[in-house]
């Protein structure tokens, strides 16, 4: 298993548990190597990474889960705007990528992060133009059928 996969798994679990009190479990059977293009449905947070690791980290949420995560942090609000949801998803992606960045820096792969962006759509096709890494993870939200996916499309400057 690639180190990046391990780091992302730890980071996603920690962010969900700490910020939203939502426990998630990694689906060990889900293929680690992604086969782009990846088709997402819902809300996708992304943060670009540049430096010795170059690429983009994505967090993919189904629409109702994005809402649920948002409600668990900001409180229930039936009239909540997409903008507030985008803010939460963007911040989650930022925290996961920040965590990954720190772990990679400890291994000598220093990089910088962009501010997060959030995409919405059905479907959204995410492809990779160039890179030697296409890594994916899937997490199940405990006690539900909800899943969160992560993608790292990147190039490692080794």
């Amino acid at each position, binding site marked *: 298993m690639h180190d990046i996969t391990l780091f992302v798994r730890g980071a996603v679990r*920690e*962010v969900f548990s*700490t*910020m939203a009190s939502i426990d998630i479990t990694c689906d060990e059977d889900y293929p680690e190597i992604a086969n782009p293009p990846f088709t997402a449905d819902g809300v996708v947070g992304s943060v670009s990474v540049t430096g010795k690791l170059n690429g983009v980290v994505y967090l993919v949420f189904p629409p109702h889960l994005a809402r649920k995560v948002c409600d668990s*942090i*900001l409180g229930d609000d039936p009239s909540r705007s997409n903008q*507030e949801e985008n*803010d*939460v998803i*963007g*911040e989650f992606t*930022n*925290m996961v*990528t*920040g*965590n990954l*960045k*720190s772990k990679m*820096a*400890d291994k000598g792969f*220093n990089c910088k*992060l962009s*501010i997060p962006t959030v995409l919405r759509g059905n479907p959204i096709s995410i492809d990779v133009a160039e890179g030697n890494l296409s890594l994916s993870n899937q997490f199940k939200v405990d006690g539900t059928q909800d899943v969160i996916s992560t993608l790292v499309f990147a190039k490692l400057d080794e």
Partner: protein
Amino acid sequence: MTPKILSVDDSKMIHMVIGKAFKPFDVQLFYATNGVEGLAVATRENPNLIILDVTMPVMDGVETLTKLKSDPLLKDIPVIMLTAEAGRENVVKIARIGVRDYMIKPFKEEALIEKASRILELQAKGAGAGKAKSIADPATLLVVDDKQAIIQQVQEAVAEYPWTVTGTGQCGEAIDLSARETPDAVLVSLSLPDRAAFNFFQMIRANPKTKSIPVFGMCIKTALDEQNQAQAMGFTGIITKPLDPVDLNYRLTKAMNLDTSPKYFKMDGNLMISRLPHMISDVITSEINSHIKPKTQEMVESGVAKMVIDVTEVTKIDMSTIKIMLSIMQNCADLSIKYRVAGSPEFVAQAKTFAETKDLQIYPSREAAKEGF
């Protein structure tokens, strides 16, 4: 006074998490979404703590922190940095600029409160009712310096307040004194022999009774090593010798979280008197500006609708004086408060040379302005 906390983060989620964390406590929260806004709010509100994100658009946290630390009015405000990046390089970088503490995202609300309470005295809502302190209340300052002249200069600088200044040249005695009666603030000379000031500081911080007292290090401007070491250890601030009484007053009152508005605003019967002092420095401008809005709002809420702006002590008008006067007059106009201005003949003569004040009716004394108002 209720402590002011400024959260600077581009994420509304983080603002809400911070708001939720501090909800049980008696604090005033302010929010900004980037460094530029954050610096503007910090200048206006003079917060007691800034919680600053690293990654933000327009101006990031590192640049904001650098600007805060280079501004004489803002440099003493403690900053807790929030970052999603826990890497050593990042942490060392922000620690070097003078951050008081940092938090790695994701974080628990309790962890933030724990860090904030090391810097501020957080009181549960309602618990502090009636305890608000102002410059008119008694306070105790402990000055630790082996030069008696410095202790005397501090005494003279704060003579206008009902404060007791206790001086000693020995850190051991200072520890005993602070154990007997907890001072409200401490000034200690960084040049005492055998690094005594730094050991003293560690002992003060290690004692639960004195751990949150503001402690300022005093040294000459060129003693950069001592200043850097004190900053790295977490001294509240550095006060350079020769002492500037205005700067010393400003920083002490701010560190002790005292309401300074009685210096400039006080009730006189059914009138509010706003008094501008003889010299208006940058720190005084900042201090007065922070009081104008709350004091005028407080007037309206308590049914007071008239103000005399007393500038009789001001002998030289400059743009700072004009700006403060205009700001007071604008706030009065916005809230339908009637005002009159009282100034000396010298002031009247100079006021005529400024476009903003040339047509202003100025009464020759406070009493004259009050008459028939």
